C-alpha cells in the first residue's frame, strides 16, 4: 500500500508545480515551479524503482539523469531570464511578448 502514498504525494507536488507555472508572474518563480515539476517526476521514478524494480533499480539511474538535466536547465533558464531582464528591464511574465505573433 505504501507505493500509492508516494505516487499521490508526487501527483500533489506536480499539480502545485503546474499551478505555480501558470499563475506566477515573476519569471524566476516560473523556473522554481519547473524544478517542482521535475522533482515530482523523480519522486515517481524513485517510488517505482523501490517497489516494482528493487533489484535492478533502473529508476534511480533515470533519476540521476533527470537531476543532471535539471541542473543544466536551471543554468540556461536563469541566463535567459537575465538576458531578457537586461533587454526589457522587467521580469513580469505578462509583459514578455517576444514569442507572440
Amino acid at each position: 500500500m505504501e507505493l500509492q502514498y508516494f505516487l499521490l504525494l508526487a501527483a500533489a507536488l506536480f499539480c502545485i508545480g503546474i499551478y505555480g507555472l501558470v499563475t506566477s508572474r515573476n519569471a524566476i518563480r516560473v523556473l522554481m515551479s519547473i524544478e517542482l515539476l521535475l522533482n515530482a517526476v523523480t519522486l515517481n521514478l524513485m517510488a517505482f524503482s523501490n517497489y516494482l524494480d528493487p533489484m535492478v533499480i533502473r529508476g534511480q539511474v533515470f533519476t540521476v539523469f533527470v537531476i543532471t538535466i535539471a541542473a543544466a536547465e536551471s543554468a540556461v533558464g536563469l541566463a535567459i531570464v537575465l538576458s531578457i531582464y537586461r533587454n526589457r528591464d522587467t521580469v513580469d511574465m505578462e509583459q514578455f511578448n517576444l514569442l507572440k505573433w
Partner: protein
Amino acid sequence: MNLAEGVQIVSLGVLAFLMLATSLGVVLLDNIVYSAFLLGGVFISISGLYILLNAGFVAAAQILIYVGAVNVLILFGIMLVNKRQDFTPVRNAWLGKAATAIVCFGLFALLSTMVLATAWPISSGPIAGDAALVEIGKHFFSDYLLPFELASVLLLMALIGAIVLARREFLPEEMVDSTDEVLTLPERRRELTSTPRQ
C-alpha cells in the same frame, strides 16, 4: 531500510507534510526570496523521502545538486534581478487563477483515481539497499553508457550557452566613461577595446 514500520509511517507523514507545505509556500508567497528558501526545504524533504525509498546515494546527490547548486543559482538570479517593482494588475486575474486551480484539482483527482485503481505489480524480491551505488555504477558503464556520455556533452553545452547568454556585451554609456578607475572590471564595447587608450 532497517527502521520499524511505525517509524517509517511517521517519518513519511512528517516529510510529506513538510514537502507539501513548503511547496505551497514556494508557489503562493508574495516575497520571492522566501520562495527561494522554501524551495530548499522542498528539496531537502524530497531527499528524506528518497532515504525512505532505500536510495541513499540519490538522496545525497539530490541535496548536493539541488540545494547546493540549483537553489544557490536561483538565489543569485534573484539578487541579480533585484528590481522592486509592483506588477501592474491585470484585469480579472482572479479568474485565471481560479480556472488554473480548478484544472489542477481536476488533474490531481484524475491522477489519484488512476493511482488507486491500478493494480501495481509490487515486487517482493530482495531489495538492493546499500548495494544500489554499485548497481548504478554498473548501469552507467554498461547499458546506459551512451546517455551518460551525452549528459556530459549536454552539461558542457549548457555551461557555454549560459555564459554566452548571460554575458554582458557592453556597459551602458555612463559606465563606459569611468573605466579608468582602479579595481573595476572594465567590460567595454568591443570596438573600444581594440583602440589604444590615451
